[in-house]
């Protein structure tokens, strides 16, 4: 492999591991130092490998260089503290851990601790996403700004504030106490799911990048699953959910990057392997009595991964939405439940219930109403789609509504 593709790939897989391990030495409040050393290491690799050839064990090479640089840095720092600034540093008892351990176990532990640190409840969600992409997933600033449809300056500011937040809240790089894991894990899962959704629902034109984001979120979930302390049923449920969603990745956008709705997707493009994986994780999630929202969402996603369409399937989906909404209300779940109601019971019942919703400002509400009315009253369906067109917030949403309008127009003519 040529260095031009080798290094970006290594950066993606090794950057987050190396930063996590180095942060064990420097402390989380000095994350910037760890990041700088890792970036320098990659720069050196680019120079050296180009001239002297690529080493056999590339990751090992990177670890050794980073380890030596860390040692040098800490030595200098120690001298500075002892000789140059003894008075200034009085009272400060910052002690650095001198040995940098790049063993497999240390890497995994450090990464898990980093996940818990970044998903700490005291860090604002937006900051968690940006910092997570950078430090947990090894995304470059360009990639983050492209994935989040933002610009470099904004992302840099967000990252800066997020790191300041870590310092301000004295967050440490440690594994939570046994009694805390369950609760802290909820926050971690929320962030992982948000990361996944950032990729899955991204309007970014870069589909490779969006997919990478989803895969990274799944990888973080796998890390949790591979540790006994965090391999809880809800972790399996979230992983199952992401597998089912990801199985439709290739079928949900056309060559122009426009969204293809579920019913218009080419089902041959659904990834069977991911669906099977999802089923396996869903079974594993059934251990224990807990029924989290991820369990319910994963079960709904499971039914959507079935290609056949029969009333029993929709009855199951309806009941799952009934339960999900009792745990947590969301407009999307309310609208999806209504669609399932139309399929399982009757369109009239669904229309009657949907009219009670206070969601007339959402274009999705009007899309649902149009969907329900299209076989009964095309004129009403069209009226709802006009309203939806006035409410869309992006070109992508607009093209979906226009697609629906074309379909209803064809039915009416």
């Amino acid at each position, binding site marked *: 492999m040529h260095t031009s593709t080798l290094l970006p790939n290594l950066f993606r897989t090794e950057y987050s591991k190396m930063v996590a391990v180095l942060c064990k030495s420097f402390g989380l409040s000095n994350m910037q130092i760890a990041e700088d050393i890792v970036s320098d290491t990659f720069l050196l690799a680019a120079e050296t490998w180009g001239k002297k050839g690529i080493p056999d064990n590339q990751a090992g090479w990177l670890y050794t260089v980073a380890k030596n640089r860390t040692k040098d840095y800490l030595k200098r720092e120690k001298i500075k503290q002892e000789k140059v600034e003894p008075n200034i540093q009085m009272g400060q008892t910052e002690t650095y851990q001198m040995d940098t351990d790049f063993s497999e176990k240390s890497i995994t532990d450090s990464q898990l601790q980093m996940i818990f640190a970044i998903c700490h409840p005291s860090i604002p969600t937006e900051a968690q996403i940006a910092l997570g992409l950078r430090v947990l997933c090894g995304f470059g600033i360009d990639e983050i700004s492209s994935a989040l449809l933002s610009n470099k300056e904004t992302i840099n500011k967000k990252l800066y504030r997020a790191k300041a937040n870590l310092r301000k809240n004295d967050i440490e790089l440690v594994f939570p106490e046994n009694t805390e894991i369950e609760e802290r894990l909820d926050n971690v899962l929320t962030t992982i799911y948000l990361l996944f959704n950032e990729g899955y629902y991204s309007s970014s034109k870069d589909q490779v990048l969006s997919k990478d984001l989803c895969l990274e979120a799944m990888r973080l979930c796998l890390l949790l699953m591979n540790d006994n302390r965090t391999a809880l049923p809800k972790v399996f449920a979230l992983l199952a959910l992401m597998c089912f969603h990801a199985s439709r990745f290739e079928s949900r956008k056309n060559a122009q990057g426009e969204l293809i709705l579920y019913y218009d997707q080419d089902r041959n493009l659904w990834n069977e392997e991911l669906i099977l994986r999802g089923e396996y994780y869903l079974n594993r999630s059934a251990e224990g009595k807990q029924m989290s929202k991820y369990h319910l969402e994963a079960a709904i996603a499971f039914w959507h991964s079935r290609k056949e369409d029969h009333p029993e399937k929709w*009855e199951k989906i*309806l*009941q799952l*939405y*009934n*339960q999900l*909404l*009792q745990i947590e*209300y969301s407009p999307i*779940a*309310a609208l999806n*439940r*209504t669609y399932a*109601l139309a399929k399982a*019971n009757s369109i009239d019942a669904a229309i009657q*219930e949907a009219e*009670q*919703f*206070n969601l007339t400002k959402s274009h999705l509400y009007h899309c649902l109403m149009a969907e329900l009315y299209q076989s009964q009253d095309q004129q009403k369906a069209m009226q709802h789609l006009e309203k939806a067109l006035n409410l869309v917030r992006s070109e992508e949403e607009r093209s979906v509504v226009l697609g629906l309008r074309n379909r209803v127009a064809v039915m009416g003519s």
Partner: protein
Amino acid sequence: MQEFMMLFRHVPSPDYMPSPEEIKAEIKKWQNWIGNIAAQGKFDSTNQLGYEGKVVKPGNIVTDGPYAEVKEIIGGYIIIKANDFDDAVEIAKGCPVLQMGGHVEVRQFMALDL
């Protein structure tokens, strides 16, 4: 939004032995009614109550169940958020207990200044 509690009251029939399918259908009805409330963002919590009960009276007297004195039992409750009393009553009209010959008592939460 105000909070209301609905109490589901009915007279249980000792002869009624529903089949598993009938029980399933009954649960579906309740779940669809509650799901509709939840889909409007008005759901808070709900519980079904078991048939056994104890009654504690002054003087350290504990008796089995309230059923010796009253025929009607409370089968369960739901706590909802509604715009006003009318809204809560409108929601109660869909309650499946009505199809069982029972009735719904709609009560408003009272805020106490403590």
